[in-house]
């Protein structure tokens, strides 16, 4: 037994295990203390879009415990996780906004892009009025895309779908350049258009 305790490999494994357990414990405690809830993340996104806090009613929210609203809307190339109606109670002259949290698939290296898409409704008109990035996977170049990329989506919903294929016809074209990093973002916005058209 004594021989085992004096063995260098036993010491090595013990020290590494001790470091892992202490680090893991510390991170677990801090993760709990510094947890950011989905509601807070939604509030942060709405502040990013509007510059102030807004009241909203939920149409779809996959983080909700209410079964009536917590199912995502799936499409072939993306899904919608959240749909909120903003300030509907203060609505005057038929003006209000939809805010979507939408994820597009099939990006660069099969990555996904999640966007917040604001659609302003004015009577019968529905226009995409703001698009901001929430997060992405595998597409490290997304952070390099400037406002110009997101501004290309600001059109009327009735104008039709977007494409990242430079040879695409009959649809609005968004091509960013050498990589296919635009594809997943385009799919995310197309999900919103599909929901509003459908």
């Amino acid at each position, binding site marked *: 037994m004594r021989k085992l305790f004096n063995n*260098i490999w036993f*010491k*090595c494994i013990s*020290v*590494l295990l001790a*470091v*892992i357990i202490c*680090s893991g414990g*510390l*991170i677990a405690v*801090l*993760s709990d203390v*510094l947890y*950011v809830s989905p509601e807070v993340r939604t509030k*942060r996104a709405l502040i990013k879009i509007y510059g102030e806090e807004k009241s909203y009613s939920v149409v779809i929210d996959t983080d909700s415990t209410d079964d009536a609203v917590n199912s995502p809307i799936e499409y072939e190339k993306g899904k919608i996780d959240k749909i909120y109606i903003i300030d509907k109670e203060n609505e005057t002259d038929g003006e209000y906004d939809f805010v979507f949290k939408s994820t597009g698939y099939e990006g660069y290296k099969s990555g996904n892009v999640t966007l917040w898409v604001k659609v302003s409704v004015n009577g019968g008109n529905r226009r995409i009025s703001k698009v901001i990035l929430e997060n992405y996977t595998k597409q*490290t170049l997304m*952070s390099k895309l400037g406002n110009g990329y997101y501004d290309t989506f600001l059109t009327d919903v009735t104008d039709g779908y977007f494409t990242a294929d430079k040879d695409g016809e009959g649809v609005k074209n968004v091509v960013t350049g050498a990589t296919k990093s635009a594809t997943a973002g385009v799919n995310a916005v197309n999900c919103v258009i599909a929901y509003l058209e459908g």
Partner: protein
Amino acid sequence: MKNDYKKIAFDGAIKNNPTLKLVLGTCPTLALTTAAMNGIYMGLAVTFVLICSNVLVSLLRKAIPKEVRIPAFVLIIATFVTIVRLILDYFLPDLNDIMGLYLPLIVVNCIILARAESFASKNGILPSALDGLANGVGFMIALTLMGAFREVLGRGEIFGFKVWNFTLDFFGTSAGAFFTYALFIALFSLIYGAIADRKKDKAFSPVLKEPNGEAE
């Protein structure tokens, strides 16, 4: 003792500046120096991780067998980087978004691993903490200066304030980052070399004496 601390601080921040002299931590240096503020943010995050990891490595230096010192150091550094990420995500989410991918990459930043291996694992807690602070400040100064240079020339701004309307888009690109880095390394070597030569000349200058014994 006081001189030792002075030497540690001077070596870490200036003489062996991790960015401009040792050319370590190149990835965030090239990627994040588009603005001066980014340099300060990244510098602060790296300084925090450097001080904490150096202190812990120094504390555990006799307990960690040398065979597993590198994995142990990486685990310790990764813990502190995760803590920084949690804190930023909770209190400063915008800053967390700006630093994005480069924040978790601090785990494999050569500066932190190099200081843990070459200094903290051989020295006491206080000198190790000071070494972490000095190296972090040196890294922050280098990134902020480079960021300010690229921001002024690339966007005509400094710390977000408009300076002039003249801009050179090249300095906002990756090629501009490499060019700026090379320019700063050359400038640093030139200035530091000139100062060192001057000191050397002073130290070894012969004192000519007149036959009557008076110095010339």
